[in-house]
Structure formats: C-alpha cells, structure tokens
C-alpha cells in the first residue's frame, strides 16, 4: 500500500486567526453591492408568472418611455441561448416553453434600479398556460402510479450482490418511506454581480460567487467570447453553502448580456425576497427502503429508491443524486445492495447545490431507517450500529475498499461513551402519559465522501500555482493562486498555513489573494468538501517544489554550490553553516530572475478505481466520519420540541486549523437544526410560500443547544498534510438523530422533514386518539 511519509507540522494544526476576520467583524469587507462602479446601470428581469406554458410573445407598453432603457431578448444573445451545465436544457432567456414561475423572459437595464424594475413591469408576456407539476408530493404520487409519465432529468443505479435472492432469504423485511423538503441557503448577502465591458474588449465579471471557473466556460458559449476575454473575480462572500455554486452563472449572464448591449457596466443585486424566490434550494427528496434482516441483526439486503425533485432543469442535479445514492446505504456492512436514483422535473426553480449535496437527504432517511431496523430485530440502536458499522478493510456499497484513514468505529464508540448513551437510552420517556416533559436520546452515524463524487477529481485534475512575488510593501511573498474561494470557511488561513509548513517558512510570508481567473489556474470548484483535502494537498506539493527551486537558486548564487536546505524560515548551507533568512534569499531571487510561479496538479492515488457507468469501485478518495447524539425534551402541554444537547465526534483527517474546523461543525450543526426542525417552504400555485426572512425561519443563537464536540484524527495517508473534508459533514447527521431521539421521547416516528410540533400532534392524534 502506497503511503506518504507524514511530515512534521508547526503552523498546520494551530488555531490561527483568519486574516479577513477584522474587516468582516468591522463591516469593512467589500461585498458585491459595496463597490462603486461609475456609470453602472441596474438590471431587472421580466419573469414568467406561470409554472408551465408556451410563450406567445412579449408586449411592451407603448406609453412607457423606452428611450432610457435597454431590453435584451433571446435575439440579442450573441452565442447560444444555453446555460452550459450538465443537461444543456436550460436557456438563459425562455423563448418557447416556460418551465417555472420566475423564469426569465426578457432582461432590462436602466440608469436606476427603480426605473429598471418599472420597465420590466411594462413588458407583458402573452402565455398559453399548460398543466404543471410543482411539488414533491405530486411527483412521488405520480412515480408510484406511473413513473413513465414523469420527465426524468437523470437516473443512476448501484448494484452489489443479488438483492432479490437476499430479500427472499431474509428473516424479516422492513419497508419504510421518508421525505424531506426544500432548504434555502440564506447566506448573509443576497446574490449580486456586476459586468463591466473593458476598453480592451474583455468583459470583467465581479461579484458574489464560490466557483469563478464555472462562470467562465459556462458564459463563453452564450456570449460567443473566447475564455481569455472573460475575466471573473470574486468579491467578499458572506456565506454561500452551495447557493453560490452554479447559480451565479445565471445572474452573471444577465449582467453580461445587458452590459454588452448597453455598452456600459450593469449591476444586478437581488433583494432577499427575489433571492429566496428566484435562486436554488436544497432538493426535496423521497427515499423508499426495503431491507432484509437476519435474526441476529445482520443486514442482508438493502433495496432503495432515492428520488430528487430537480425543479425545472437539469443543472447539477445528477451529481447531487449520485452523492445521494452513494450515501443511501453507506456506513454499514451489507453484501446485497440495489439502489435506484432518479431526478425528475417539477415546474419550480431548478434545485441545486447546498452543503451536503444529496448526502443529508440520503442520510436523513438511512439513519432513521437504521433505528427502525434495530427496533425490528429487538436491538438497541447503539448495539445495532456497533454490530454492523463499516470498519477498516470493509467494502462500501459500491465495492470500494476502506484501505486507510477510517475513523469508524472510533467516532461511534467515543460519542456513545461520552454522552452515557446506554444509561440515558433506558430512561427515555417513550410517550409515557402524565409526564410534564418527555425525554429522548437518539444517535446517528455516518460517513461523508471527501472530494468530488465518482470520476470528478480524475476529470478536474485540480491545478494550483504559487507565485513568489513582491507584496505591496515590496517584501517577498508567496501568493497562493487557486480558484478555491473564501466564503466563510477559512480557506484564507489554511492555505497560507499549508504553504508555511510545506516550505518551512513563517506564516507572514504566505498569503491567499482572492481568486481572479486572470491570475489563478482552475483548481476546480469550491465544493464537495474538497478544498482542504484536494486543493490543500496540491498546494502542499507545490510548496515543496517552490522550496526546492529556491534552495537550488540560493545554493548556486549565494552559497557557492553547497547543498542548501530551507528550514525554519532560513536557508541553511550544509558545509559552512551559513544561514540566510528566507526573505533575503527570496528577495535575491526576485531581483535576479523576477517573479517565480510554480504549478502543480492533483493526482489521485493509483489504487483509486472508479467506473462511472456501473458505479463500482472507490466513489471517493477518502471519507470523513461522524457520529451525532441528540438529546431532547418534548413539552407534553404543547408538543414543542427542545433539542437540549448535541454530543458529537468527527474524523475529518488532519486538523489544519482546529478553530476553523470547530466553527464549521458548530455552524453546520445549527444549519442542520434548521433543516431538521424549522425550515419549511411549500409551493403554492408554483410559488414558494416562505419568501422572506419573516416567514422562512432559521435558528437563532438562542436555539443552539449545548454542544459537546470533539475530533479524532485519521489523516488521509496519500498526500500531505492529510486533511479530509469538513465543510459538509456537519449537515449530515442531526435530522435523523433528532427523529430517533423524538421517537424515544414520544413513542412515535416522524418520517418527513422538517419535524414540527404540528406533525408530532397529528401523529400522536392518529396513533392514540384522545378526547380534547
């Protein structure tokens, strides 16, 4: 087995403060709406009022003064009217069939925001309305009746062993269905972008985003522009959570099309209401399981159907579904697995990326199911998990071998022990009458694939660069040039930490400037818990290359050809013991040769094998592992549910910056609490009902329970420094742990997210009718 020797780390592993903390806390960070662009016009969008229909025409009000306004319709698009994502089925501007409420029908720009909106309101579409399918519930009902009638956007299967035979052999077969609704990312600042036509024929796109290299190629076809003419730069981002992964291409496209026609900068900043109505959300999901068990509690067969409500177009939904099915039977030993994943169209805004990317939906169902399976064979949830959980050397549902860095079962054992699960499990209320409060405890255990799903990393081949150059004070600096963005998670501190240790220099000599596609190579998108592991390890090896280049230079030019080692921020000559501080050596290089750029590229370890057609092999280069225990109380007077404590252990590989990592876990758990118990959107006449922060309720600090959170470190063995993913795993386990705890408290099982007092009331009324 190939293994990289573990380095010794000085800066990595320290909870250092991020360099952007001060300006963000003081409100000085420059977000998309903060920078002043002289002569910029404002854009507005004419949107479809119907969920599904055929566009017959657009009528401009002849009484409106159109002289001050620029209008873009499909005829004005220089290239193809296609948003170049996975399906190539989405137009920038609808021209024939309309697929959702809010779909753009025309774009408008004007000198003021108000005038732009007024102009948009003076364009009236003529639409022939068609029947629409707008909700997960309608979609699932149709799936059960006749799936052929649904419009399938994507499908994929996983097969291992023989499930039909295994179900027949099983001592018992348990069938269950679970579902979950939309979740809005609700980042701090809404979507916003500006497009600026430059004098040299380039188009500069600047705004709120997490993946600059999505926008660049995706817009080139539409604008009929070579990639080198399109410059994309990220502004400060106050959170994205996936909501700024693929969506910004759309708003960037609207700005770009308007700017090219108006021949001036055009800016579009959504307000919160527009942002919730007309941007992506987490896919609503439905899972149906049929699981065969042996009497001794062995899981003998897992059959699963996993459905996502894709919204109107394909966008990234196939990959969300892939991650979903890859996590739908993950974590436990089973020789016979059959999973069918589907994404179907509904007539709503396309659903998209959101922290966890299909895994939270899958694990919500699967980890609820595990408790139901344990109960069916008369075991406690903890004993069932300990008996069946995957361990080092076991195979995943796709037959991938867990070769190394496996935090299971340690995270499970440690969490159960830490919170005193066994003893607390025995005193759960289970709906006992006459109690003022019901107490319950529940557990979830899960793995989260680190890095892009399936063949993603092999395709992306993440490229990174390090630039040795002068900073503004004319001091030598190593700038990390990657397209991975800072959006709150701490990229801006972990990357300099990695460079510092890779080169053995002080942290102050390394920096992370915000990505600009004219300066950074394509390191792939900032998604999939991949930045620290994939891009971070490549930055580390680039750092080692840069170190070697400088050592050679210093040896030849300053040390008479003696071997030279850069160590502890100084070049050490081997024979005469001469020491040259890093910045002197680097300055000498710059003075003699000018700036130095080194590149490196991510390479998967050779043993990682994956078949993208059959979904067999190693779906991910590594997994992070986690265990959540939720304790809660139900007020029996009102059925209000109060999560009082979360105990958790995580294995995210090498901890690069424990403070940042803990911040990800804490914040992610609060976001997961919203998903589990608060955040609810229903589609009414094709429109989201909760379309403001007044009605879309997320947790506040007051809702945060006591948290007892810990890490165990199983570094990824195949690249230094050995981080795995932390970004998404906090979203994965809270909802099922809460539903499991709620059953222990109340005696009833809820299978739809979010879990609410209203739902508990309805379920308790149904199972134990009582007189009012």
């Amino acid at each position, binding site marked *: 087995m190939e293994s990289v020797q573990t380095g010794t780390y000085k800066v990595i592993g320290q909870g250092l403060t991020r360099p952007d903390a001060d300006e963000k806390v003081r409100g000085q960070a420059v977000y998309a709406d903060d920078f002043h662009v002289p002569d910029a016009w404002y854009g507005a969008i004419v949107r479809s009022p119907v969920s599904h229909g055929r566009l017959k025409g657009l009528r401009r009000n002849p009484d409106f003064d159109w002289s001050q306004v620029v209008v873009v319709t499909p005829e004005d698009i220089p290239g193809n009217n296609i948003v170049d994502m996975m399906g190539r089925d989405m137009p920038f501007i609808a021209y024939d069939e309309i697929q959702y409420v809010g779909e753009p029908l025309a774009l408008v720009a004007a000198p003021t925001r108000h005038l732009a909106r007024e102009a948009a309101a003076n364009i009236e579409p003529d639409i022939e309305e068609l029947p629409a399918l707008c909700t997960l519930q309608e979609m699932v009902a149709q799936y059960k009746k006749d799936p052929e009638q649904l419009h399938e956007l994507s499908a994929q299967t996983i097969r291992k062993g023989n499930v039909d035979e295994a179900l027949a052999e099983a001592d018992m077969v348990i069938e269950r269905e679970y579902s979950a609704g939309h979740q809005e990312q609700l980042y701090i600042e809404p979507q916003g972008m500006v497009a600026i036509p430059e004098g040299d024929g380039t188009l500069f796109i600047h705004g709120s985003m997490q993946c600059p290299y999505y926008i660049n190629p995706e817009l080139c076809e539409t604008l009929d522009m070579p990639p080198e003419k399109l410059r994309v730069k990220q502004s400060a981002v106050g959170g994205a959570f996936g909501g700024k992964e693929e969506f910004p291409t759309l708003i960037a496209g609207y700005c770009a099309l308007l700017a090219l026609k108006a021949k001036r900068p055009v800016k579009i900043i959504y307000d919160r209401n527009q942002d919730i109505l007309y941007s992506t959300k987490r896919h609503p999901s439905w899972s149906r399981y049929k699981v065969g068990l042996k009497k001794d509690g062995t899981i003998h067969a897992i059959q699963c159907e996993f459905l996502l409500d894709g919204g109107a177009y394909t966008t990234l939904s196939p990959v969300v579904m892939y991650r979903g099915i890859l996590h739908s039977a993950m974590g436990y030993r089973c020789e016979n697995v059959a999973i069918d994943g589907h994404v179907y169209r509904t007539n709503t805004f396309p659903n998209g990326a959101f922290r966890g990317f299909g895994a939270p939906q899958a694990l919500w169902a699967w980890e609820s199911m595990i408790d139901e399976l344990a109960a069916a064979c008369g075991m406690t949830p903890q004993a069932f998990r300990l008996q069946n959980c995957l361990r080092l050397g076991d195979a995943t549902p796709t037959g991938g071998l867990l070769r190394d860095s496996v935090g299971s079962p340690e995270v499970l054992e440690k969490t159960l022990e830490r919170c005193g699960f066994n003893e607390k499990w025995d005193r759960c209320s289970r709906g006992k009458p006459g109690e003022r409060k019901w107490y319950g405890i529940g557990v979830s255990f899960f793995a989260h694939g680190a890095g892009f799903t399936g063949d993603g990393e092999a395709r992306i081949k993440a490229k990174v660069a390090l630039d040795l150059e002068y900073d503004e004070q004319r001091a030598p600096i190593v700038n990390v040039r990657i397209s991975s963005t800072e959006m709150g998670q701490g990229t801006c501190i972990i990357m300099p930490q990695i460079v510092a240790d890779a080169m053995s220099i002080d942290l102050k000599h390394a920096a992370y400037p915000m990505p600009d596609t004219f300066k950074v190579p394509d390191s792939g998108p900032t998604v999939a818990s991949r930045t620290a592991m994939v891009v971070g390890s490549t930055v580390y090896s680039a750092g080692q290359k840069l170190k070697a280049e400088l050592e050679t230079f210093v040896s030849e030019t300053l040390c008479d050809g003696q071997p030279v080692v850069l160590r502890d921020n100084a070049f050490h000559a081997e024979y005469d013991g001469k020491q040259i501080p890093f910045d002197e050596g680097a300055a000498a290089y710059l003075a003699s040769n000018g700036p130095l750029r080194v590149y490196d590229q991510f390479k998967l370890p050779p043993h990682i094998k994956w078949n993208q057609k059959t979904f067999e092999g190693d779906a991910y280069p590594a997994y992070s592992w986690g265990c959540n225990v939720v304790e809660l109380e139900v007020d029996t*007077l*009102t059925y209000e549910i109060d999560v009082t404590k979360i105990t958790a252990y995580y294995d995210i590989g090498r901890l690069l910056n424990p403070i940042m990592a803990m911040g990800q876990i804490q914040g992610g758990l609060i976001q997961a609490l919203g998903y589990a118990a608060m955040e609810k959107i229903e589609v009414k006449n094709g429109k989201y009902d909760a379309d403001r922060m007044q009605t879309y309720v997320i947790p*506040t600090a*007051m809702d945060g329970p006591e948290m007892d959170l810990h890490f165990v470190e199983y570094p990824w063995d195949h690249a230094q420094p050995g981080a795995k993913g932390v970004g998404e795993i906090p979203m994965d386990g809270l909802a099922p742990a809460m539903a499991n705890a709620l059953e222990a408290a109340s005696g009833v099982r809820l299978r739809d997210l979010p879990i609410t007092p209203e739902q508990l*009331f309805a379920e308790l009324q149904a199972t134990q009718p009582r007189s*009012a």
Partner: protein
Amino acid sequence: MATTFEEMNCAFPANLAEALELMSDEQTRGRPLAGGTDLMVQWESGVLPMPERAISVKHLPELRTIEESDDAVIIGSAVTHMQLRRSDAVVRYLPSLADAAATIGGYQIQTMGTVGGSVANASPAGDLAPSIMISDGDVIVASVRGERAIPVNEFWTGYRKTDMAEDEIIVRFRLPKMPEGACEVWRKLGPRKAQAISKVMGSCRLLISDGHIEQFRVAIGSVAPVCVRLRAVEELVTGKPLNEEAIAAAEACAAESVKPIDDIRSKADYRKWVTGRMVRGFLEQSLG
C-alpha cells in the same frame, strides 16, 4: 401614491397639537409612523401601498412616558418595547405585558417598535394584544376634535381593522393594575426561541382565593382575525374550585372557542388544540 421612500413625504411635527392639526386636514394627513418596524416592511414588500405622506409620532414627548395612577398604569403610545420590559410599573402591575414585550423581535426591533404601533397595526399575531386585553383598560385616541377612550376589547374590529377615525392618533393606554394577590402569565409558541412571529400566544390574569378562582381573564392571539378574550372560559371557571375538573373543562371550552386557520406558521387543528392546552397550562401553573 409614493413608490419609493425617497418620494414619500414624512412630516416631523414639533408637538402633539401640531401632529393632530396635520391629521385633521385631508391635504396634510398622513400615515402615523412610529418605530416603523411593521410599516417599513409592509411598504417595502408591497403588502401595504406606500402612502404619499407619513407623519412621524415617535419623537413626540407627550407620547413617550409611562406613568402610574392609583389603579392604573398609563403608557404613552410611542413607548418602545424596550421601555416596557424595563419599566418597574409595568413589570410589577402588568407583568405579562412586560414579558410579552421582551419576546418581540430582537433588541433592534424592541428599541424601535412601539406599543401604539403594535396596537394600530392590528395584527392578530401582535404579541402585546393579549396582555392589553386582559387588563380591561382603554385605548385613548386623540384628534383636533378631542380625546376619547375606547375599551381595549372593542378596539380591534376585524382583521387589521380598528375603531379609529382617519384623523385620530393613539396617544396612550390606560391599563388597570393587576389586583393584589393576582398573577399574570404570558406564553408564546413560535417556530424558534427568539425573534419569532407567534403561532399561538396568550396571556391570563388569575386571582385565586381560598382555593377558588375569583378572577380569570384570558386572551389568545393568532387564532382568529383579531386577538380574542375567551369569555366563555372565564365564565365557566370563575367561582369554581381550582381543580382538575375545572381545568379540563376550561381546556375543552377554550379549544372550542377559537376558529384558527391554516397558514404559513401553523395548522388550524394544532392551534385549536394548543389553545386549550395553553389555558390548561395557565391554570395548572397556579396550582403549583
């Protein structure tokens, strides 16, 4: 109609008399604007059309004080939620009102929002309404024609409707103090623990003597077009011994007394049931 805040004309009268003068004339009349925590949101979102004129009343000194008489607390209409929750008189004599004010919005909203604004907004989810109603006090409104007292229980006439004339401004509230030995309880069910708009909320005032219920007043919000006093429940238990029998009867009667709806925040059947449960909780709390 104004279409932007810039177009809206906002007057800042020097005193109450000047404000009433502006309100008296159709040409100068405007929407009274206090903290703006409801209106600004409704205007911006288009829930309410933006008026051409607004008249700021929050700064008027006549409306900003809390005073005490022998039997009542007199609260100016521009008193903020923050003032309410911190007022000794309110905490002591109208404790459920102080508790309710403490659950409205966050600090920013509590610092801007006012009692008069919340009452004039006439939302069935207005968190101050139940505590005001159980005091059986008066809303004092004024115009150039003079002042008049409207009993609080007659002030709200329908969903977002009040008994005020278009030239009138709420100037203060006269809310009788809780009797000696009585207690008040406020309870709010929201989707989260802070900054929540209520699913159901309510207040009660309870006086027990000799194990009997001498006085019970209860009002519940978010279960009807206006916040409601549950008179049938009050009558049912007054004079009865405080025991499980009375509590069960009150719970059943309360659930039957309200006609809630399904909306974005909750479900009708849950609201109906939980209204009874809240009344049970109010009475059980006093049982100890």
